[in-house]
């Protein structure tokens, strides 16, 4: 057994699609780009492909580093690589940036062919189902008729689930991690506060801030701060920051006093420096709209009847944004339909973000699951 390694230097690629894509919102993209990365080799039978779907602020850069930026490590690098749970000596792994994204795939910052200017707020709403359709075309392009597995956490888990419903014959296994069959009202509420922070930023300019040479950084920062709070657990925040005071005592000001304030402001600023506000708006709405049971009168059992994949569902005990109870809904709906499903509730203190960490129990489970997948 070799030590787990990085996939090393990786290079993103761009696939251009000239065939129009009809979107659930009623809009159409006449043509579009998807940026993606691949790791490992597609085998001769083309049976070893694994698609990794990203969450809210993720991208196609799932593993490895860039030659010109070796500190830019893929967001799920602890999971993917030679000797890692998603072993690239066995699997051909694909990461793809979704439509509406801000990492090179066609999104609000791209040029709208109708106006010659950036789409901005005119970029059509995209749904999880639309993303899956676009990813399916990329799979066609890469010669992958059927994925060995589709994996994702949070919003990525919704994509994995949706794949299993939209293209059941193309999904062998699906891992739905720290996810839910739809958001709760509380979750939508958090997203709405985040959106209002952006929409009311004076630099937002109705979403056409690109033309004004500004970005609604304050709004995006606030959006990220509230999001960030919900991705951690009270315990992990308490353990990391507690009530530590920067000056050792209260100085009675609105400047940074508590360490948690410093941390949130830092994370918010950092995020506002690289992420696109329109993408954040669009993607939180994508989360809000996802609800495969809706067209079945809210009956999740009926909605999941189409799935034929073997499922792994994973939740984390301290995740209060996508709580274990939400995963149970998926598990019991799959069970109702007599699908193969395993479910684990990982005891990890880190809240929703646990799915990104390399908790030993969690990774041992994923290793066991990927090992069992025949390619």
């Amino acid at each position, binding site marked *: 057994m070799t030590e787990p390694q990085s996939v090393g230097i990786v290079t993103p690629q761009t696939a251009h699609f000239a065939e129009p894509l009809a979107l659930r919102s009623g809009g159409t993209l006449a043509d579009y780009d998807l940026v993606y990365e691949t790791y490992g080799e597609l085998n001769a039978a083309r049976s070893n492909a694994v698609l990794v779907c990203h969450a809210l602020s993720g991208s196609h850069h799932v593993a490895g580093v860039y030659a010109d930026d070796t500190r830019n490590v893929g967001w799920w690098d602890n999971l993917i690589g030679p000797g890692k749970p998603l072993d690239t000596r066995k699997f051909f792994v694909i990461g793809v940036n979704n439509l509406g994204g801000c990492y090179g795939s066609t999104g609000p910052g791209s040029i709208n062919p109708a106006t010659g200017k950036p789409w901005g707020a005119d970029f059509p709403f995209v749904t999880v189902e639309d993303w899956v359709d676009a990813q399916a075309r990329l799979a066609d392009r890469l010669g992958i008729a059927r994925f060995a597995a589709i994996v994702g956490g949070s919003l990525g888990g919704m994509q994995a689930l949706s794949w299993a419903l939209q293209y059941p014959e193309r999904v062998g296994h699906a891992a739905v991690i720290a996810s839910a069959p739809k958001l709760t009202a509380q979750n939508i509420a958090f997203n709405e506060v985040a959106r209002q922070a952006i929409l009311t930023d004076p630099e937002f300019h109705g979403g056409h801030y690109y033309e004004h040479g500004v970005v609604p950084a304050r709004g995006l920062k606030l959006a990220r701060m509230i999001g960030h709070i919900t991705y951690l657990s009270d315990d992990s925040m308490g353990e990391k920051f507690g009530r530590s005071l920067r000056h050792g005592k209260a100085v009675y000001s609105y400047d940074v006093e508590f360490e948690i304030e410093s941390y949130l402001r830092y994370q918010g600023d950092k995020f506002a420096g690289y992420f696109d506000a329109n993408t954040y708006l669009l993607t939180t709405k994508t989360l809000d709209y996802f609800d495969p049971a809706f067209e079945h009168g809210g009956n999740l059992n009926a909605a999941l009847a189409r799935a034929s994949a073997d499922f792994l569902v994973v939740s984390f005990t301290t995740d209060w944004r996508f709580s274990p109870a939400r995963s149970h809904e998926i598990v019991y709906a799959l069970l109702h339909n007599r699908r*193969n499903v395993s479910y684990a509730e990982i005891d990890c203190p880190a809240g929703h973000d646990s799915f990104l960490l390399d908790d030993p129990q969690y990774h041992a489970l994923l290793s*066991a699951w990927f090992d069992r997948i025949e390619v």
Partner: protein
Amino acid sequence: MAAYRYDYDVIAQWIAPGEKVLDLGCGDGSLLKHLIAVRQVQGYGVENDPDKLIACVKNGVNAIQVDMENGLSGFEDGFFDHVIMSLSLQAMHNTQGILAEMLRVGREAVVSFPNFGYWRHRQSILNGRMPVSESLPHQWFNTPNVRFFTIADFDALCELNGIAVRERLAFDEGKIVVEEPNFLASVAVYRLGRD
């Protein structure tokens, strides 16, 4: 408890091909694997130990993490043909609750347990020490078992709770015991139904 696999054969006899089976406290999934092989069941295990859960996934067996002490609330009434609890009932606090849950989600329940009334165990107590045997392999201070009961006790509980004993087999170290099972058997396997 790996030595006590002979209850698997008894359990398999009571399962019809293609049934839907739930195995509570499924461990590494080996009973389900056996039932899938010999009866082509559609099996699901319930397990709360993370390491055992991973072992199930390695074995290719469906395993669902549930703390059975809290019942089986996510499982639908009458969904399973058989709900099995093999050598785990004695490790449950909520004995009556889980028996009721088994017969709620299953048409029939199959339960096996070590018989505390086994003559060697009685002898051990007479000699002043808690029994340690093939069927009760732990010391008193490290046993996962929290309920110590006999075949007679279990019969009385079924009577009290309106549970029908449809069949019972008793064993002494793998051999069937017909006479005086409460005295001579180390393990009992029951097929239970609703009255």
